[in-house]
Each structure stands twice: as structure tokens, then as C-alpha cells.
């Protein structure tokens, strides 16, 4: 792989992971709110 190939791979892993992790927090917040609203 070329140097730019490795750099692109690393940035895809870093920014992709941040997007997935923060997205998972947002989904878990929404799901918890829905469960609480249904129960109250």
C-alpha cells in the first residue's frame, strides 16, 4: 500500500470510530428516553 493509502486507512478508522461511538451514545439516549416515556 502507498503512504497515502495507509494515512487514508488510519483516518477512516479514527473518524469512523468517533462517528460510530458518538452515534451509539445518541441512539442509547433516544432509546432510554422512549422506554422512560412509555413507562411513565
Amino acid at each position, binding site marked *: 500500500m502507498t*503512504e497515502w493509502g495507509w494515512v487514508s486507512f488510519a483516518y477512516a*478508522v*479514527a473518524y469512523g470510530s468517533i462517528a460510530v*461511538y458518538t452515534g451509539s*451514545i*445518541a441512539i*442509547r*439516549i433516544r432509546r432510554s428516553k422512549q422506554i422512560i416515556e412509555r413507562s411513565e
Partner: protein
Amino acid sequence: MNVQTRIRRWPWVAIVLAITVAFVLSMVSPKDDVQGELVRIMYIHVPAAWLAYVAFFVTFLGSLTYLLTKNLKWDRIAAASAEIGVFFTGLTLALGMIWGKSTWGVWWTWDARLTLTAIMFFVYLGYLALRRTTDDPISRASRASVLGVLGAVQIPIVHFSVVWWRTLHQPPSLVRPDGPAIQESLMLVALIVGVLAFTVVYVSAMVKRIELIHLEDRRIEIEHSIDRPVAGDSVVVPELGAKT
């Protein structure tokens, strides 16, 4: 969009803005004489490692303060920070492996820094697992806080491992007795902005993660509440002793 929605969304907006600025700077900075374009991996690998240290240090402070005050607020801060710390440590390991393969020719080597970082990753995974052993907030906080305090011993050991032992990993880039190793000003700016951008990611994720812990505690409280209907309105309670 109303004001409340805008306020709730600021952490997400801050993350996008911060990493966009960091990305642009890391791409326009010059290539290194030795590492060539591969030096750009440093602008995400070093910030991820730093924020892992910061996150675990906040876990240490939160855990210690909980043990002293018994206020659950501090345990929530410790827990939120530990999860984000595990995320950043995992990211550090993954990026380090990519950088290692492209420069050293191997994905992994049992080097002191790499091995100790992996151990730190698994210890804090254990911290998160320990928190799931009970729903009782008090016993959960008490157990986790002890590990949160003890686990912090690893932070200086991991950081100074490249100084204390002869390792393949390069010495610290920023915090070192003779000043930063990077002499090119734009490269130094890109690295500092990278650290600031990941700090924004950390703070924003902390705000949302603490909100989530509050919601999860409320959900567990509701699930354990005796007044909660078991199966909704569709179930008719049978009359005991009634003729069939």
C-alpha cells in the same frame, strides 16, 4: 429548530467542527523528512493516546471523590470517563498498529509501550464489566471506585515506559524534558490542534454520556418499581375464587 434542541445538539456540532479543523490542518502540514506522508498518522494517534490518559485520570478523580464523599454524582463522572477512555485506548492501539505496520513492517510487537497500553485497555474493560455485575447504584459505585483509583497507577507507567525501558516505540512527542520533539512549526500546530479537537470530542461525549447514565439509572428505577404495569392494559387480572 427551537433553542432547547439547539442546546441539546451543541456537543455533536462541536465534534464535527473540531475534527474538521484538525483534519484540514493535518492534511496541509508538510511531510516529514524520515517518515514522509505517514507522519500524518501522528496527528490522530498521539491525541487519542493523550485523551485516554485524561479520561482515566478523570475516572481516578471521580472514583477518589466518590470514596471520600459517597456522592453518586462523582461515580457517574468516573463511569462516563472510563468508557470514553476505553474508546480512546482502543483507537490508540488500532492507529498504532496501522502506523507500526506501515513504518516497522509489523502490526504488533511485544514492546513495553504497546504491551502496557494493551494491559491498561483490558483493566478498564474490566472496570466497565465490574459495573455491570449489579444494578444497585451504591454497591456498583463502591466496587468500581476502588478499581478506578488503583487503575490510575498505570497512567504514568504507560507514558514513561518509553523512557524507562529500551523500546521500539519512539519517545514522547510533546511532553519531554528537552521540549517537544517536533521542530517544524506547522507540524507542531497540527498536533496541538489535533489534541484540542480530541479534547472537544472527549468533553462533548462526556456531557452526553453523563446524560445517558442519568437516563439508564431512571430506567432501572422504573423497571424495579412495584407500581409498574407488567403487561400493559391488554391483560385482565383474573378474579380469584370466581366461578368459571
